[in-house]
């Protein structure tokens, strides 16, 4: 996606954090910048473990969460991250707000700007909405999920969790299984994982993966497979995505049970993975469909760690976007 709002940064290179203005997707993050965010998130995680988990660095900054789509975990995670850094936080959801009265996205952004927001965290059901917002907002936008397009903070917390558990990203075999075509999490994960040197395989029924030539046009190294069982012995990270029940009504799945039989994460499948392998899920889970309860709570599961790490990673992002960018140095 080419958008003027993102083309302003990049020329200073990875030694300075100052040039980043928005976090819209991971496609404009170099591997150095991703690793810098993950490193800072390690320091942020230490703060979260203190008896007084708060540092003053963003005192006086205002973070506004606008969620056009409900999301408890992402919104709370951003709220906690902002509070831990001492920013003031307001959250608004579409329901019961001026958005319901028909206010346009651009007008909403201008209003929030007039109220003095420094950072807007935005979830929207339309792909690309945060890019439009970024063109009308003087501060920073963080995309907290737009349509089917991107969910960069989720991808970063996934990378953080993988690196925390397995010690590295480069060279790992990562399998993302499920409803890839509708998943913004998958799309951001693919950018981040490939850029950090991991091998990524998409897996699922062809109706949920879509056109392979399209995938390979964007990601030449991406692998695609329709048989999960073949991949298991050589998988370091297995990530399941949520299967929405509507997909069956839309004719993309013969039945949820057939999906579970072929692609569901069962204990039996987990047993066929290497001893160190981990299981992930971005949540919310449909237990019994894409992941069985015993797999979700097995020792391989890092699903709870993903949630905890999300706060630290979002702290690192909020910090990275703060401070006046200067042209010198």
């Amino acid at each position: 996606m080419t958008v003027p709002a993102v083309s302003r940064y990049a020329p200073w290179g990875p030694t300075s954090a100052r040039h980043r203005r928005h976090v819209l997707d991971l496609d404009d993050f170099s591997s150095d910048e991703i690793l810098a965010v993950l490193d800072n998130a390690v320091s942020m995680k230490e703060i979260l473990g203190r008896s007084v988990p708060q540092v003053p660095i963003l005192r006086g900054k205002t973070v506004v969460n606008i969620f056009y789509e409900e999301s408890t975990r992402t919104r709370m995670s951003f709220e906690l991250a902002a509070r831990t850094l001492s920013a003031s936080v307001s959250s608004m959801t579409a329901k019961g707000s001026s958005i319901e009265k028909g206010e346009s996205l651009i007008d909403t952004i201008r209003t929030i700007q007039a109220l003095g927001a420094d950072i807007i965290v935005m979830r929207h059901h339309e792909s690309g909405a945060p890019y439009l917002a970024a063109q009308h907002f003087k501060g920073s936008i963080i995309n907290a999920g737009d349509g089917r397009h991107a969910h960069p903070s989720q991808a970063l917390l996934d990378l953080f969790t993988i690196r925390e558990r397995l010690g590295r990203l480069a060279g790992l075999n990562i399998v993302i299984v499920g409803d890839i075509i509708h998943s913004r999490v998958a799309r951001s994960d693919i950018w981040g994982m490939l850029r950090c040197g991991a091998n990524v395989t998409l897996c699922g029924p062809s109706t949920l993966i879509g056109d392979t030539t399209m995938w390979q046009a964007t990601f030449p190294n991406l692998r695609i497979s329709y048989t999960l069982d073949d991949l298991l012995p050589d998988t370091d990270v297995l990530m399941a995505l949520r299967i929405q029940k509507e997909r069956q009504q839309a004719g993309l799945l013969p039945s949820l049970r057939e999906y579970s039989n072929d692609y569901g994460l069962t204990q039996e499948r987990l047993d066929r993975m290497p001893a160190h392998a981990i299981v992930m899920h971005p949540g919310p889970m449909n237990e019994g469909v894409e992941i069985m309860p015993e797999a979700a709570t097995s020792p391989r599961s890092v699903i709870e760690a993903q949630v905890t790490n999300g706060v630290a990673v979002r702290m690192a992002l909020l910090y990275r976007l703060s401070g006046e960018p200067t042209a010198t140095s």
Partner: protein
Amino acid sequence: MNERQIMVADEVRRAIARIAHEIGERNNGVSDVVLVGIFRRGIPLATRIASAVQSIEGKAVPIGALDITLYRDDLEIRGPSNTLQHTNIPVDITGRTVVLVDDVLYTGRTIRAALDALTDLGRPARIQLAVLVDRGHRELPIRADFVGKNVPTATSEDVAVRLSEVDGGDDSVVIIRGEA
């Protein structure tokens, strides 16, 4: 570059030994003392002071590391740091005597940030400050308890402390003349 050396390796070594003696004297022993180095050069300095204290007092002193980046007051001027360091203080500081260690004391703003950071981690009985060089020009009401060397400087000058652990080569302290 226009440099003037103000301490050589031997002088650095003696200053550290003297500070170690003074810490023991001031606190009547070191049983409650924790040395906390401020990233970056405060940490090797704290380590060296600890080993000097050990040889004088015969007791090991815990050492911690403190990164004060998230307590700074100049985010708008300097922008965010690309790499934060990890704060790691291995003991509970509540009720202890914390000796903060840094290489150069200048405006006092770093120490102000460090005091805030320490109070978030616990409630020390007292906090003292040890620095290798005090170069003056305080902007806050802060002073050091233990000073390796007082050095009059101009604000246009820079003081660089070079330690073998961080910078390689021999220890030294130099004043770098600023371009006027």
